[in-house]
């Protein structure tokens, strides 16, 4: 605090840069899921869509569409398929347009489709 105050007087700027250092509390935060490419087929995708309580997931043909903005990081999809869905570890997710939040996840093509 005193150092910060002295530097502010010297430079005429009292604000600081961000982030000064990585925050230790960030490790325990719940984060939106990351989907393991090459494991999720249409059937599993439909199950993930069914367990999502906040309409963040829907399937569009052979693509799983994930709206990060709608995700509440509840972890139900991770519970339903822990081998295919893991926490992404990303929490600083602010965006400047809604389209930035919509992510397309390619699904495995099953034989005979």
């Amino acid at each position, binding site marked *: 605090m005193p150092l910060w105050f002295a530097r502010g007087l010297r430079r005429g700027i009292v604000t600081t840069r961000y982030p000064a250092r990585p925050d230790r509390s960030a490790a325990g935060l719940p984060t939106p899921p990351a989907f393991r490419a090459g494991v999720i087929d249409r059937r599993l995708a439909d199950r993930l869509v069914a367990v999502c309580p*906040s309409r963040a997931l829907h399937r569009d043909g052979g693509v799983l569409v994930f709206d990060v903005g709608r995700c*509440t990081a509840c972890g139900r999809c991770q519970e339903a398929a822990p081998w295919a869905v893991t926490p992404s570890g990303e929490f600083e997710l*602010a*965006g400047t347009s809604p389209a930035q939040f919509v992510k397309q996840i390619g699904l495995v093509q099953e034989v005979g489709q």
Partner: protein
Amino acid sequence: MSGGSRARAVAASPAARAPEGDVLAARLRQRVASQFGRSLHIRTLDTGSCAVCEQEIRLLAAPHYDLHRLGFFFTPAPRHADLLLVTGPMIRAFDVAARKTYEAMPGPKLVVATGACALGGVYPADAFVYGAVGEILPVDVWIPGCPPSPLALLQGLLVAVDRLAEKVSGLTFTAGGDAEPPAREAER
């Protein structure tokens, strides 16, 4: 003004299609961002949230996060506010109050939608809620999370004043590697 909906509206209007209009708009945006960059007053607006977003917003003023070091301050009056931090799914009973709050703010002003409700996640539009803040107010920056942690809120506020670049558009949310599904699952 950081390339949000308003910036797109400017770019789409015929008067601003000329190059000098673009240059002028860009310079204006830059000037607003530099003015807001180190002194920004925030008015929070709860449009029907469960108050967990408010708890996280309140934590911003705690010593650990200390948003005042970044030049951000909370103000109780929309007349003094540069930025409207909106939480909740925008209940229909609140739309007049939300519009009045927005209109009471002096321009230039920013609107930040905060939390999964405000981004349209939790409540679908029905007789009671609009379902997303963007239905009523021109949102500039969206902050996902349920609730967004104070760190996510700080990053969102800094994105709003162009002190940080957004990084969500670069994320794919796919994990690498091919883990084998358990045998029981593969049979199904």
